[in-house]
């Protein structure tokens, strides 16, 4: 075992290393050193052998040298004084006629990473830059970077930097790329290597091996072409690498494309179309890690081009033996690709995943069905209801949570959901699932005949309840149920409030119970206003699909680790509490009059943390001429032209006719935040606004006015 018996091993090895008989026999000597390395790789602390190993360094056998260097580089930091002894041998090797030996010595000299040895290293490194063998120059160039990392605060030697710049023109492509890497590290303080037009074109014309290519493409992102002609020259040069068989080159090229074409959205979109093939090929790669990364990047692309993969949806079906993290990503992609033609097949496929052995995958599949349910609610509800019949704990929990989220967005599903709820409280074990069930019982209490009986079981067991969330949800639910079915609930509400106020140890629960108690004192109408104020509007139809984002929203995170991380955020959202706590709803304008005016209520908030204190309600009067009922599609299209997205609207010919809108300011350089503007458009009533952030708001309003004016004039 690695960590045991270390001391004996070390003692034995030392005896062998210092044995003159072993030292004279080259083969035995090397084998002993081999044992040292083996012990080292097993985690035994062999640092005590340092002085013996230094002696072994002076040899003509290259393999022995390599072995000793591996040892020395690992333990040099612990023995800076003894390491001084190695330097002489190393410096002698730097003069060796064999370039392999020279590069080996130079590399290990810099790998010792001891600041005390710096003065001895600089001279051979300078000589190494002018060596006639390319492999020595490669090592020497990177050696300067290592030297700089040892003492990052030291003065940068201008002569060395100049020499490195001139080596960018070296005939060996690897020396060139290594120069780039070294300069990037040495000049980090100044923002990296300076990229001008001649260097750019020199680099682009000498793209060589795969790894170097990625490096060059990444560094070139800093270059801004001076004219459009130059830009297109560069793009044509890069075209071959855009469809490169190596996914890492393809990704680096696309990243450069997007940064170069940030002002030309049409060209960027064409580039995205072009990489579809290589990306899909990467999704079918043998390596599962590669497949995963490709999937994450496809998700980014879909944000701007939702139709990009439409025809290839079958590529995202999960294989039986695929790891859970790939399956979950594939499902996220599948949800984006759903349309009228493939919905039956997709749902069939997802249904198969719901019974996956891995519970996380199963739950992800269920919530994916829920997401699709926002557009195809009947079919999805049928599947979800079917899953409840399996009486599996984790499945039921996920289904109930999904139904809760679905009902909030599509209230028309509530009848089916209420029917399905009967009896599932027996299977539910985890707090998330029970919380969801309670919420549904509270909001749709009058439709579930057994609601009070289910609640009673919960209230009887409240003493042994451990989850804080369930207790708080239970309080709210009982209050809500009391409002619609007082006769059946009054008694148990009293018991619950009594327990929570008198016996409950947790402050949060107690405070909430006290709040409700006092609220009840204020009268039933007040209570109703507080507890039943927020409901989603059943007449709202949610738009299918997601509006496409501009590429600039995600271009900077392409080919970084960012898209790989995002999955965790999305899974978090499935474990959140009731939807009303997170859904942000603009305040409806209450005074309706018969004038055919639009009122506009704008709510505006900054950041996401202190929403409560930061959001401001702004209202402003805008007068519009009457717009005859225009079709939602034309309104949506018109709004999208000016980057205003439509969230939802009521069906035509209903009064009051509402549209919810949102937009956000672009990431301008000076302001750190993105301002999000939410608006409600009301077909009747008047509007008044108190502008605070006038600049952003005024712009939004003037654009909105123009759009509405244009629309109305078209109708006339």
């Amino acid at each position, binding site marked *: 075992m690695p960590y045991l018996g270390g001391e004996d091993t070390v003692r034995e090895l030392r005896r062998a290393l210092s044995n003159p008989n072993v030292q004279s026999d080259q083969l035995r000597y090397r084998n002993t050193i081999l044992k040292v390395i083996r012990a080292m790789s097993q985690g035994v602390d062999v640092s005590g052998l340092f002085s013996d190993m230094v002696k072994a360094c002076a040899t003509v056998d290259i393999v022995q040298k390599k072995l000793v260097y591996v040892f020395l580089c690992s333990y040099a930091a612990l023995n800076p004084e003894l390491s001084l002894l190695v330097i002489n041998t190393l410096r002698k090797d730097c003069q060796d006629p064999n370039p392999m030996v020279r590069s080996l010595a130079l590399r290990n000299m810099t790998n010792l990473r001891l600041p005390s040895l710096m003065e001895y290293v600089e001279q051979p490194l300078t000589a190494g830059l002018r060596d006639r063998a390319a492999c020595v120059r490669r090592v020497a160039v990177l050696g300067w970077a290592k030297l700089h990392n040892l003492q990052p605060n030291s003065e940068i030697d201008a002569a060395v930097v100049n020499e490195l710049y001139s080596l960018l023109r070296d005939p060996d492509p690897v020396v060139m790329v290594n120069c780039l890497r070294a300069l990037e590290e040495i000049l980090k303080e100044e923002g990296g290597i300076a990229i001008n037009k001649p260097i750019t074109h020199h680099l682009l014309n000498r793209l060589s091996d795969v790894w170097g290519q990625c490096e060059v493409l990444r560094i070139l992102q800093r270059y801004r072409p001076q004219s459009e002609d130059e830009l297109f020259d560069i793009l044509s040069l890069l075209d071959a690498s855009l469809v490169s068989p190596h996914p890492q080159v393809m990704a680096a090229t696309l990243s450069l494309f997007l940064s170069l074409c940030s002002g030309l959205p049409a060209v960027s979109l064409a580039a995205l179309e072009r990489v579809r093939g290589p990306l899909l090929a990467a999704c079918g790669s043998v390596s599962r890690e590669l497949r995963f990364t490709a999937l994450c990047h496809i998700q980014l692309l879909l944000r701007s081009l939702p139709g990009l993969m439409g025809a290839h949806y079958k590529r995202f079906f999960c294989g*039986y033996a695929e790891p859970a993290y790939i399956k979950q990503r594939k499902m996220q992609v599948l949800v984006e690709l759903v349309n009228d033609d493939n919905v039956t097949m997709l749902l069939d496929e997802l249904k198969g995943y719901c019974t996956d052995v891995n519970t996380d995958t199963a739950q992800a599949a269920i919530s994916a069905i829920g997401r699709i349910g926002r557009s195809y609610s009947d079919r999805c509800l049928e599947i979800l209801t079917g899953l409840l019949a399996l009486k599996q704990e984790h499945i039921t929990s996920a289904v109930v949570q999904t139904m809760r989220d679905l009902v909030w967005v599509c209230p028309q599903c509530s009848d089916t959901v209420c029917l399905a709820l009967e009896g599932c409280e027996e299977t539910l074990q985890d707090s998330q699932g029970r919380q969801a069930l309670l919420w549904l019982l509270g909001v749709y209490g009058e439709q579930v005949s057994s609601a009070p009986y289910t609640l009673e079981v919960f209230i009887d067991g409240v003493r042994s309840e451990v989850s804080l969330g369930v207790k708080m949800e239970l309080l709210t639910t009982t209050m809500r149920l009391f409002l619609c079915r007082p006769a059946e609930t009054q008694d148990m509400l009293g018991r619950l409030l009594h327990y929570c106020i008198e016996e409950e140890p947790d402050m949060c629960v107690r405070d909430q119970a006290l709040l409700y108690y006092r609220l009840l004192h204020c009268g039933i109408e007040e209570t109703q206003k507080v507890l039943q104020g927020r409901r989603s509007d059943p007449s709202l139809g949610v738009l299918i699909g997601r509006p496409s984002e501009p590429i600039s929203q995600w271009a900077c995170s392409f080919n970084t*680790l960012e898209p790989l991380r995002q999955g965790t955020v999305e899974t978090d959202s499935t474990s959140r509490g009731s939807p009303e706590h997170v859904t942000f709803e603009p305040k409806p304008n209450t005074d309706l009059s018969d004038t055919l005016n639009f009122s506009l209520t704008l709510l505006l908030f900054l950041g996401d943390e202190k929403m409560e204190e930061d959001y401001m309600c702004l209202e402003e009067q805008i007068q519009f001429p009457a717009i005859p009922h225009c079709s939602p599609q034309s309104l949506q299209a018109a709004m999208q032209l000016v980057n205003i997205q439509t969230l939802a609207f009521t069906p035509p010919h209903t009064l009051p006719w509402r549209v919810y809108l949102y937009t956000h300011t672009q990431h301008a350089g000076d302001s750190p935040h993105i301002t999000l503007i939410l608006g409600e458009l009301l077909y009747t009533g008047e509007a008044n606004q108190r502008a605070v952030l006038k600049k952003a708001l005024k712009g939004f309003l003037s654009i909105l006015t123009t759009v509405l004016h244009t629309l109305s004039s078209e109708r006339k």
Partner: protein
Amino acid sequence: MIHSLFLINHSGDIFLEKHWKSVISRSVCDYFFEAREKAVDPENVPPVLQTPHHYLISIYRGKLFFLSVIQTEVAPLFVIEFLHRVADTIQDYFGECSEGIIKDNIVTVYELLEEMLDNGFPLATESNVLKEMIRPPTILRSVVNTLTGSSNVGDTLPTGQLSNVPWRRAGVKYTNNEAYFDVIEEIDAILDKSGTTVFAEIQGVIEACVRLTGMPDLTLSFMNPRLLDDVSFHPCVRFKRWESERVLSFIPPDGNFTLMNYHVSSQNLVAIPVYVKQSISFFETGPCGRLDITIGPKQTMGKTVENMMVTIHMPKAVLNANLTATQGTYTYDLTTKVLVWDIGKLNPQKLPNLRGSLSTQVGVPKPEDNPSLNIDLKIQQLAISGLKVSRLDMYGEKYKPFKGVKYLTKAGKFQVKMLCTAHFSTNWRSEYI
């Protein structure tokens, strides 16, 4: 870029570590072990983990984790591809990539890692170049080395590194000049319960073994190159000529290499070589079920299907299987619930059949998930996509080489979804009470 590399075995021991910058303590792997424990199955460990100071990017190959530690934001594809390259190189050198083989050749592995990366940047990753600097061990050489004490390090400067063709060394000489190409295709398909194709694609690869003297320039042309959808080539292939003329023109590396990978994804082009008639049913009363599978040839272009093997992951509730096979043998693993039926050669006159009863656990709800059936097969001398090499020409050298092409079709991820029916028999007594 890549700061350190740890190799971790199946049971969670670190058995090799290599640092290209400063030494990072092994304790950084604790974050990985935590994730490994949470994932239960080692395959499910996410490839990218974030720790307070580092990113851990790992790949899982041959029951080993290659875990790289990274300190700054990097392109993930770059690192993942590089790690695979490390694993490929080890595989290439020692024939397999496993803990035992790496431990046996630990010194060569250290040497390789030292050459492949310097200061965290990829240096020499081309296997031809590496093999000139560090010779792969052969039985003969290791015997010679032990006797003479000579090393397996090349004493000459690798010439390939300086030539204009970085993948080929200069001055290659053979007495027998030969070039062999293997066209290997794998069918990835999902068939649904009724046997219709849900999804099918072909992943093809052309492996080459070229031993030719000098600097030959080869041109390989196909009868039907338009079949191929996504192609990716070895860097030696001239992409421009492929785009304009659809031929592969290249100066080959010396020895074995992968010339090209391709996909055929349009579904109507993918022939499905076998059909499966299957039914699995469970009875509501009584602890048993029934299974019946027949396999027959479908589109095999007149070739025989060999090495047929059927693997079924049974529902958890199935305790044991009592079956009879008309051909081949079957085994049922009680712990993993995997049924394997090894058929061998498929005889079109007498179709193999497997039928019998399954015993299920009493009192457990009927199996909820539909089992799926994975098929493994081989067809020699056939590329199922219909791809055919028409000719190979050589320019630049005078001699006449020996040429050969072999075709092979295999099943990749070939999956058939099973129809699982539950028989509900009425309990008469409860009806009448």
